């Protein structure tokens, strides 16, 4: 961070020559510490008392292993070390603070915690003091050999399953609660057990971020990027398989499948919003309303006993109609408002989002026509039944594994996300997508280049709404209810945050952003009242450290990190009128 830059400069000038031994010593100390007890408090579980590293200690240990880079002369190692050590230090500090907080005082920290803190600090200092300042390591390719394609494909498949593995571990962190079937939303008293288990999610997130960052700086991300680009079809296939396999890893745990399905809905909507915001650059703050239109329509025509309409359309038709009606709403709202730009558009869409919520809240028969049951919403949506008689509401046993009924909805969700992602990717790389980006970059120039800006902006708005409508229809079936509470401004803001945090203009970004944004508040519940505060702090930190988002599009990464010369990149140099006759 730039705030620390003067400190780092001083470290470099004082310690530069001995940085490697110092850093190595620190990392070694940290390694030893992970085998010592970190807590003296007997009632403190969380794998802190014994001498076998687990939980946060294991995470720190993994990051300490990067210290071998002090003695290996590979390109990018200084920056990788700085990344790994700062994340190791952050996790250590957080854990020490947490043991102190949960146990009632820092006195509860065991000898391991203090040794670890000292080690992490020295590790960090050593890494920062390194005199080598190499840029990002270049992408490397495997040596050309007959086995290369096979190994590359293997790597791509392994990558997909590694992501699945990380997701499963991350999702499974508060194991104790899920196993005992306690729903966090309902659970009243928070035990110490919850605290330690869930507190590790943040540490886990830091570990993943730190490790990915360090590996990326060693050139691994760029090299993998080359390979995945070459075998993009394999990546898609492996990704789908990994996603489909996920229910088998959950040993019949319906709760986590439900969370995964919700992440899917959230991600699909985020990808749709990414068209509007990421590609066309239209700030839509009321996007959740389109999602709501889809959800309400699906709820009303799917045979719910609480629906005022006594119809039960087949699901295939419902999803198409929901998408189309939502798209129509997009056009209706877009046509008059898209003349506005920037902040004004944001305010108007914000207003429309609220109008939708308030309207469905009032269409209860007393304040308005009876349609939506007001605040109660349309509930008891029956389980989906496929034409063959396959009901989504029943548990199944597949390959000898018990699958709770939530797995069916999860798979439906995987299909939805795959469809939405394909649509997005193909549109982004087409004539239409380029026109959207051109409009975002310079609307006047886009018009002068032959782009019908009004029409294309409306198209972006309508398509975003269509995808949101489809996602909403599926969501109504997953949660079995459509109620006004689910379509608040906060939801629109969260979706927007997912797009920006993940990286504007990419599907991977929207997916990752949606996952993090959905899981983080879930996993931070142990903080109770402080939950949203910490959530906010994490978001601010991410945007401070990585303004282009977690997985930015190539264009956006360059936008933030390539010296464009002038602030706006295109202003005329001084002496603009050098050609004026004198």
């Amino acid at each position: 961070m730039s705030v620390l830059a003067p400190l780092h400069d001083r470290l470099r000038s004082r310690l530069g020559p001995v940085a490697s031994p110092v850093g190595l010593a620190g990392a070694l100390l940290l390694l030893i510490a992970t085998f010592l007890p970190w807590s003296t408090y007997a009632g403190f579980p969380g794998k802190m008392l014994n001498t076998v590293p687990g939980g946060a200690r294991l995470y720190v240990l993994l990051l300490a292993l990067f210290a071998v880079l002090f003695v290996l002369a590979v390109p990018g190692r200084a920056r990788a070390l700085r990344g790994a050590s700062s994340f190791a230090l952050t996790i250590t500090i957080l854990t020490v603070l947490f043991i102190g907080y949960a146990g009632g005082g820092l006195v509860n920290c065991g000898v391991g915690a203090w040794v670890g803190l000292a080690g992490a600090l020295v590790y960090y200092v050593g890494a920062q003091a390194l005199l080598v300042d190499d840029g990002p390591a270049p992408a490397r390719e495997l040596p050309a050999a007959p086995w290369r394609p096979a190994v590359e494909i293997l790597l791509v498949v392994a990558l997909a399953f590694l992501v699945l593995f990380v997701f499963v571990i991350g999702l499974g962190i508060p194991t104790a609660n899920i196993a005992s079937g306690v729903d966090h939303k309902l659970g009243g008293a928070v035990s110490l057990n919850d605290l330690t288990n869930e507190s590790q999610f943040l540490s886990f997130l830091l570990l993943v971020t730190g490790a990915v960052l360090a590996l990326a700086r060693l050139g691994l991300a760029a090299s993998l990027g080359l390979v995945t680009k070459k075998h993009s079809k394999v990546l898609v296939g492996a990704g789908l398989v990994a996603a489909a396999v996920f229910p088998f890893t959950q040993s019949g745990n319906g709760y986590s499948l439900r969370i995964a399905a919700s992440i899917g809905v959230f991600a699909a909507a985020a990808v749709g919003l990414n068209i509007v915001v990421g590609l066309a650059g239209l700030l839509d703050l009321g996007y959740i309303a389109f999602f709501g239109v889809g959800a309400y329509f699906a709820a009303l025509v799917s045979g719910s006993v609480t629906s005022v309409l006594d119809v039960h359309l087949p699901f295939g038709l419902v999803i198409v109609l929901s998408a189309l009606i939502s798209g129509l709403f997009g056009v209706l709202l877009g046509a008059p408002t898209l003349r506005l730009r920037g902040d004004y558009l944001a305010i108007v869409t914000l207003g429309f989002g609220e109008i939708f919520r308030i309207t469905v809240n009032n269409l209860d028969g007393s304040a308005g026509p009876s349609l939506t049951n007001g605040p109660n919403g349309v509930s008891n949506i029956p389980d989906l039944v496929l034409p063959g008689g396959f009901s989504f509401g029943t548990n199944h046993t597949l390959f000898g594994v018990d699958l709770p009924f939530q797995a069916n909805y999860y798979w439906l969700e995987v299909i939805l996300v795959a469809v939405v992602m394909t649509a997005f990717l193909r549109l982004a790389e087409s004539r239409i997508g380029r026109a959207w980006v051109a409009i975002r970059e310079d609307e006047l120039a886009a018009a002068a280049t032959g782009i019908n800006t009004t029409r294309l902006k409306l198209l972006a708005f309508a398509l975003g709404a269509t995808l949101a409508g489809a996602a909403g229809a599926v969501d109504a079936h997953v949660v079995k209810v459509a109620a006004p509470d689910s379509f608040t401004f906060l939801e629109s803001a969260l979706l927007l945050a997912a797009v920006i945090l993940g990286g504007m203009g990419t599907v991977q970004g929207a997916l990752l952003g949606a996952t993090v944004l959905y899981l983080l508040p879930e996993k931070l519940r142990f903080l109770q009242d402080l939950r949203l505060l910490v959530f906010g702090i994490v978001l601010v930190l991410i945007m401070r450290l990585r303004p282009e988002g977690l997985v930015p599009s190539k264009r956006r990464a360059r936008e933030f990190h390539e010296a464009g010369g002038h602030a706006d990149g295109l202003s005329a140099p001084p002496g603009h009128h050098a050609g004026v006759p004198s």
Partner: protein
Amino acid sequence: MSTVLEATAVTKRFGGLTAVKSVDLTVGEGEVVGLIGPNGAGKTTFFNCLTGLETPSAGTVLYRGNALPTRPDLVTKAGVARTFQNIRLFPNMTALENVIVGRHSRTKAGVLSAVGRGPRYRREERESEEKARELLAFVGLGKVRNELAKSLPYGDQRRLEIARALATDPGLLLLDEPTAGMNPKETAETKTLVRAVQDRGIAIVLIEHDMRFVFGLCDRVAVLVQGEKLMEGPPAQVQADERVVAAYLGTPTEGEESA
């Protein structure tokens, strides 16, 4: 020689200010016409009236005999392309992408064919890219096609803007100060480029302050002063005209004349 552009009595008023006062301009097939005049003479406003960025308060603009629409994308589609005085590229797109966007009005793929990716879609994409590569090579930017527009040197940005305009298959190209801010070498290169564009059978109207550039390049020069066309004619005639000199340098007062 058939006419490409026929602007008659084009007038643009902003409230009480008349920026362009009943200006006529005719451009023949393959002709290069210069538009000069002191700052604030209404040259760019006149361009904006031609390209649909401003709607003229009065007057008619015909392109190959048909009235030009007053919406910029339709003007471009009709065959009139332009560049801007202060370069307006898509800064965060690559040079190649900038030019491919220029093909927008000449291609058709809609949402369904973009998602479906049928053979027709792929052929159209391939053709767009080939055309864009060819144009980049034509303006001399073949080697930097994957650079971001904003990271190109100033002179290259101007060339890129011309390549993007050419990608729309124009019959008439309007250049707004193509050499502004350029050094003599770049100016000379731009002159060669404009000639090459002319050789492609495209008529050109250019606004320019570099008189050597204008008089060495244009078949005809029109002078705009305070929104009105002062005169029009071959370079030599315009250059020699006292009124033009007066418009740029002012009329000498009696005392100065004798000094």
